[in-house]
């Protein structure tokens, strides 16, 4: 058997997604003279049809909601459809936007094909998406069955099903349809009863293709896709968004759908990518690495909530996109003597809160940088996962406490050696001085720097690190403060 999953009026369904709207609606394409592409049943009841201009539609009924086509939302919906099809079989074809075929011949026969179809329909219903599901012995019959049914169709007998189909379901050219009507042929069964060679001779190669489709004997190979599914959702706002509430509301709904898909595939989120097109044409993007990959809705939502609650943008978002990089769920072996963090995701969330509170560059795991330039370091976002001990020389001396920024002082020197510091509150005669430690770097470009450092002990007992650049002296930090 082959399964066909079809989202009718796909472009309209994508544009209407995440909008709790039930009235008459139509979707227009800005790139095709702005004509209406698809309408829903409520709009059809108002005599609004595809091909109308928005003005014509509004003239029929002012309440028709005109939506612009959203490629990002169509992509997201299509990924979801493929994902659902891949949950039936690994052999899936992307037949058309909003339509997928799955080859079910390798999977065990379900107790009831109707039961399986109802399960698939039920998985779309929480998102208020209407899907048509059809099972048939050949791919083309599955497509015809899906197109012809209101919700679910199962074709057990290919010839009986094809025979009862109206000729209009074959989507032949207007000329061929007219010829068949002149012959008095109204069903596919009547067409199949005619001599095949003569029909092809009269109607051309188009008829040969159609006859092969409906014969139920040809099983064309599917154009299989790699099962590399994107977990993404998007939404384009009609107006600029002024506050975070609508963004968070949508993100939660996105995550409900995406985590459901992740859990169905036994996968977890490794990274979240949040994107927002802004009203000045620029794009805001931020990637969140999940410390302990998970498919837990609340954990993922809290990460986005913490970030958006502290986010301040000069421009207003006009859309939102959330993409999840999924991975396999893996366990990790802790070291025997390692006291790991109890709740890695909770810790990641606390770090995000601290960063939002104090600034991105104020929180992290300090890392030394391979440079002689004083006070250079980097901050890593999380503790290194490898707990192995690095071999290095034992640390020496009292650690410096650095002043940021350094304090300018007046230093008396004798033969270039500091003998006194004369600036309040750090002042006194130098009783011991060690130096100079001359440092320089980046001499090959315009960032060249050069400094001379001294470690001194004052008669007050204070121990300082001094630096000299030209004639200016600064206290870089203290070892002991008195």
């Amino acid at each position, binding site marked *: 058997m082959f399964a066909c999953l079809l989202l009718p009026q796909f472009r309209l369904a994508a544009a209407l997604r995440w909008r709790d709207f039930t009235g008459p609606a139509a979707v227009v394409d800005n790139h095709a003279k702005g004509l209406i592409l698809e309408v829903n049943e409520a709009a059809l009841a108002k005599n609004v049809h595809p091909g109308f201009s928005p003005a014509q539609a509004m003239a029929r009924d002012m309440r028709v909601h005109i939506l612009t086509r959203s490629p990002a939302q169509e992509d997201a919906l299509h990924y979801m459809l493929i994902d659902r099809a891949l949950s039936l079989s690994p052999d899936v074809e992307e037949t058309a936007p909003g339509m997928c075929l799955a080859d079910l011949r390798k999977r065990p026969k379900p107790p009831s094909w109707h039961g399986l179809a109802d399960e698939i329909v039920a998985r779309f219903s929480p998102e208020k998406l209407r899907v048509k599901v059809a099972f048939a012995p050949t791919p083309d019959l599955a497509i015809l069955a899906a197109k012809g049914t209101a919700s679910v169709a199962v074709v057990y007998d290919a010839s009986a099903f094809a025979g009862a189909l109206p000729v209009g379901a074959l989507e032949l050219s207007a000329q061929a349809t007219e010829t068949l009507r002149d012959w008095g042929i109204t069903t596919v069964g009547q067409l199949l009863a005619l001599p095949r060679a003569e029909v092809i001779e009269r109607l051309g190669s188009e008829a040969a293709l159609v006859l092969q489709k409906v014969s139920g004997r040809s099983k064309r190979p599917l154009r299989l896709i790699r099962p590399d599914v994107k977990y993404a959702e998007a939404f384009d706002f009609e107006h600029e968004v002024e506050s975070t509430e609508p963004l968070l509301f949508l993100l939660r709904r996105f995550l409900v759908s995406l985590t459901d898909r992740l859990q169905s595939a036994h996968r977890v989120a490794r990274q979240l990518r949040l994107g927002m097109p802004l009203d000045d044409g620029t794009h805001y993007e931020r990637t969140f690495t999940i410390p302990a990959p998970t498919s837990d809705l609340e954990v993922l939502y809290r990460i986005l909530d913490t970030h958006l609650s502290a986010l301040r943008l000069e421009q207003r978002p006009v859309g939102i996109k959330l993409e999840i990089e999924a991975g396999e769920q893996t366990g990790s072996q802790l*070291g025997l*003597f*390692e*006291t790991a*963090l*109890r*709740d890695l995701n*909770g*810790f990641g969330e*606390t*770090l995000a*809160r*601290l960063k939002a*509170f*104090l600034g991105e560059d*104020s*929180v*992290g*795991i*300090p*890392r*030394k940088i391979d440079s002689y330039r*004083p*006070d*250079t*370091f980097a*901050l890593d976002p999380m*503790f*290194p996962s490898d*707990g192995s*001990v*690095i071999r*290095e020389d*034992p*640390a*020496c*001396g*009292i*650690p*410096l*406490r*650095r*002043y*940021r920024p350094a304090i300018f002082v007046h230093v008396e020197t004798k033969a270039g050696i500091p003998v006194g510091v004369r600036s309040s509150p750090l002042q006194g005669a130098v009783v*011991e001085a*060690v130096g100079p430690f001359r440092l320089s770097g980046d001499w090959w470009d315009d960032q060249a720097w050069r400094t001379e450092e001294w*470690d*001194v*002990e004052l008669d007050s*007992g204070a*121990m300082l690190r001094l630096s000299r650049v030209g004639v200016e002296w600064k206290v870089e*930090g*203290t*070892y*002991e*403060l008195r």
Partner: protein
Amino acid sequence: MKISAEKSGRLDSLRALVEGKFPNRSVRPGRRRRIGCRALDDESGGLRTGAVTEVTGSSSGVQVLLAALLESAVREGFHVGLVDASRSFHPADWPTNQLNRMLWVMCNDPRLAVQAVDFLIRDGNLPFLVLDLQGMQEVGKVPASSWHRFHRLVEQSEIALLVLSSRPVVEGAAMRIVAHRAGHLAARLSERQKLVEQLDLQIFERGAVEFAEPIRKTA
């Protein structure tokens, strides 16, 4: 100040009443965690977990005590959070192994630092938190209620909170450590582990019942 027998009895009955009403919030007896600093481990059995410890005195001594804590973190595989109110931590002077065990939170205001500590205590992932308020003139702006809140928060956990300051600021600290000078300029060539071994500390503890134990002044 001595607590009379009558008041002590009333205090015990009040404590029993509170523990009966809120069994999950009863205070567990403080545990000790040795950090490899002889002056501390031999004298008091290590740092108290589930309690606030204040470390004052010489800044060099305080830095060497911090080095002992970070070395202990490397040895025993735990993580330390340093909330640095004056942005004075200098990573270049610390071994990579110790840096890998440390979360560094930089603030420019003691009140922000106190809030950052609050976040980390409530998070509960880091068993040792260090709030460095040394050299901060505005340390008096930290409301006393913050310290009382920290006492209540950490005593429900296994977290050891160390407050490093130039002068005593923490009201009701369970343990006060006064660090003496760790050395002179010549110490710059000494191995830090030796400085840890030679570190001179004075330790004053607030007992579980003896609320009014006097705190001795440093010599």
